[in-house]
């Protein structure tokens, strides 16, 4: 970064002082309308002085810190939402990590702005924030991130989720913002395909930190995503509107505003959680690749891959299967989870006769579908994981494979290979229908779930349209 000239620096310092004066004034005043106005004015001034056609300079770390502080401690909807939006916009305007290309032919280079403010402490892997800062101000350390996840899990699970106070909204927006920070940092690093860059990502540093309990953090994340999935199915907002302000200290307007926004915030939190899980699994894959290529060192302490944790959780807690798959939609990873789940329980031929010596385990979704033609194998699978879970796995696996193929088709349309794509789609539908029929025929009294019916309908409709 070019050093700004002296006068500019002074100028900037002056502006900063003025802005922070507004912030300080609002800190010391009573929690009253005036203080609120000051804080909103502060946010407006920060926005106007950094985001706009003729500015283009990021605020200083102090200003950033003050805005972040407002998001973490804000007590009014206006402040929480306003500071969240400002932080998101600032991150969009002033990325901390980006790919730059000096000329059109040269490979892009990863640039990390070292001096940029971050909501996390500098030495994320082993540092701890000073004790006094843990509460509300200052950047986060790994353990406060874990605390946040625990809080969100608790909020969603229980009685705390009411439109009666700001805490649920505040914590969920904070979480969403942090996921954006992880994403902006991880995606360009991951695109570089260099382990050196990937391992330095905030996410990798956080997960590798000894200050967190990785496994319990991941379990909390899974609990959150499943519980959100359940909440979003119900008549959630009616429930919110009914528990009126009798207990709440909030004004009527505030209560309405909160219940009007809470459902959307829950949904966004769910999307953010999926993004986080997807990023972690991509990081795991990058690590595996680096491992095979011999790029990892002893400093890269091993971690249980998230995929394994998810598979364990889904196997252990069968109720979470429909909830998890309903929300988790990234097709490639979703398919991978389904396939691994199925193959864990599909009986492999134990004695290989001469005839089956050419048997090659086909650990794909298509391969799994073929296994249903073996009646005894299907029966043992039903015994092991249950009729309902099999239906969920088949339907969601089919859906994921469909997404992958139809996305591929869109690419093929451009390149001109239309026939091959359509053929693959029809094959998939055909195989799915026959696997489902085989599965159904093992038990005449089997109850077909609505998701199974919908999947069959979709497969049949696509076949009718495409062949």
């Amino acid at each position, binding site marked *: 970064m070019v050093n700004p000239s002296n006068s500019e*620096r002074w100028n900037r*310092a002056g502006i900063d*002082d003025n802005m*922070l*004066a507004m*912030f*300080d004034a609002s800190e010391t005043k009573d929690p009253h*309308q005036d203080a609120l106005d000051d804080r909103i004015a502060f946010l407006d001034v920060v*926005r*106007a002085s950094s*985001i*706009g056609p003729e500015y283009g300079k990021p605020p200083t*770390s*102090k200003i950033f*810190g*003050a805005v972040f*502080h407002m998001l973490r401690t804000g007590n009014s*909807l*206006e402040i929480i*939402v*306003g500071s*969240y*939006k400002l932080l998101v916009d600032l991150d969009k305007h002033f990325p901390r990590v980006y790919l730059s290309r000096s000329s059109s032919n040269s490979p892009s280079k990863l640039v990390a702005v070292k001096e940029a403010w971050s909501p996390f402490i500098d030495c994320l892997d082993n540092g701890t924030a*000073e004790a006094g*800062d843990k509460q509300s*101000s*200052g950047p986060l350390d790994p353990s406060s991130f874990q605390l946040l996840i625990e809080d969100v899990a608790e909020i969603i699970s229980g009685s705390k989720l009411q439109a009666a106070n700001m805490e649920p909204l505040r914590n969920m927006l904070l979480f969403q913002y942090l996921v954006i920070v992880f994403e902006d940092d991880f995606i360009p690093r991951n695109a570089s395909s260099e382990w050196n860059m990937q391992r330095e990502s905030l996410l990798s540093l956080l997960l590798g930190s000894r200050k967190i309990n990785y496994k319990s953090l991941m379990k909390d994340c899974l609990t959150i995503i499943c519980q959100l999935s359940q909440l979003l*199915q119900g008549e*959630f*907002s*009616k429930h919110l509107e009914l528990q009126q302000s009798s207990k709440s200290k909030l004004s*009527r*307007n*505030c209560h309405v*505003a909160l219940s*009007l*926004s809470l*459902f*959307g915030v829950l*949904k966004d939190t769910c999307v953010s959680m999926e993004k986080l899980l997807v990023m972690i699994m991509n990081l795991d894959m990058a690590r595996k690749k680096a491992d095979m290529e011999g790029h990892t060192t002893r400093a890269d302490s091993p971690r249980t891959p998230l995929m394994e944790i998810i598979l364990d959780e889904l196997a252990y807690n069968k109720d979470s299967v429909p909830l998890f798959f309903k929300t988790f*939609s990234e097709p490639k990873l979703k398919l991978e989870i389904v396939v691994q789940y199925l193959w864990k329980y599909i009986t492999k031929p134990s004695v290989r006769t001469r005839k089956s010596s050419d048997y090659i385990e086909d650990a794909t979704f298509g391969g799994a579908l073929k296994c249903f033609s073996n009646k005894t194998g299907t029966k043992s699978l039903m015994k092991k994981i249950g009729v309902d879970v099999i239906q969920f796995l088949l339907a969601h696996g089919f*859906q994921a494979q*469909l*997404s992958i193929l*139809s996305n591929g088709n*869109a690419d093929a349309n*451009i390149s001109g290979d239309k026939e091959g794509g359509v053929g693959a*789609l029809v094959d998939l539908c055909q195989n799915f*229908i026959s696997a489902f029929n085989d599965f*159904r025929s093992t038990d005449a009294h089997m109850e077909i779930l*609505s*998701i199974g019916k*919908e*999947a*069959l*309908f*979709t497969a*049949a*409709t696509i076949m009718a*349209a495409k062949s």
Partner: protein
Amino acid sequence: MDMNDPLDFELEDDLLKSPAINTKRKKIIGLDDLLKDHYKEQNKLLERRKKQTKANTKAKKRKTSYDDEDSKEAKLTRLVEKCHKQLKAFGEEEDIPPWGVKVFGDKKAFPPVEFPDLTCCNLLNSFLNNKLNSVVELTVDKGDIFLEGLLVNGWLSKLVFVCGHVEKSVAIWAFNTMLYSSKEELFSSSTDFWCAILSSEEEVNQMPVKIDWFPEYADLRRALDIYGFLFKFSSSSEPNSLDSDVEGRPPQNTRAWIRFVTVCCLIRSKKEIFSTVEAEEIVEIIICLFLDRQFLGLLVLLKDCMEAIVNYFTDQEWCSSSENIAKFIACRVSKDLNCIQTIECISEATPRCKQLRSAVAYQTLLSCFDGVNSGEEILRFVTGLHIFCTSPSTNNWFQLSLASCTFPESIHVAKVWNLQTAYK
């Protein structure tokens, strides 16, 4: 880090804090503070004079000026006291109410989300004879429940993208569920569905998915009317005097409405859903929603929508449209903190938004000063009153009109402004 920077404000460690930072930063001087200081000074001056005159009378008799001075002093004291009282009375008046307008009134009855006859829906109808229907058990009377399942579990959008076609009955049904279904999951899924099919783009300028039916603005307007939106609200009526809990409470579907409008604005190159006049009305509606405190939590949605709709216009349209919008807003919103909110809710992030902000500020000022019709006159008037520095709307309009040169007077205005600053 800058050497001049004090330590981060949030570091609580006293040991590390240099004493210089402990002294509180000076607050920006407000007009009230200046006045207070002024009166303090005057009082001090008076006291001193009193003492002086007393001393003078004791020590020497300065006959010539004595009477004169005494009456002057009394006059001044009275004046100061009067001013002081007035100031006090002014301060004791109740606080200026915060901004906030009730833009929603009574909800009307929601139309039932009817599923059209199964025979109209080719998607479902063609399956009835499929041999797999012995398993799926789709019947004529359960068509809507089945379609809901397809929508909520994501099958409908997969089907539509694979087949590249949305038939009319499905499009209308999804549109109506989005706006009128009370089931949270359902209307939020149909919003996702509509947003996905509208914004799908594999090829530039061509819809990859053929959609047989598009809503018109009238459909959207009708929905807002049913939600209870007051197209003719008056911001001067009492904003917070709501006794009933249900009255004036926008339904959850309003969120879907905003999201849908935002996506419609982004696809103008593919499908022009709104006419210019309609788009103007949408901007006005969004600004009105910003005025309702019940929408505080939807700031992100509203800001995105505002940015999208402002960019919907072509450059030629925008010149006159921004002025029309500004005039509309200026004459509808009362001249209190609400009119400032209408200005501040428009971001400064893009040149267009900035221009709109400036236009709204300008029109608001024009309507504040009745009978004044140019920027220059306003400025003279305002500088005459010496309240220039406290009026955000003047500031906004002024800075922005200079920057964007929207108004022919801006050069004159700049001259007057220079005079004013030179005078300061």
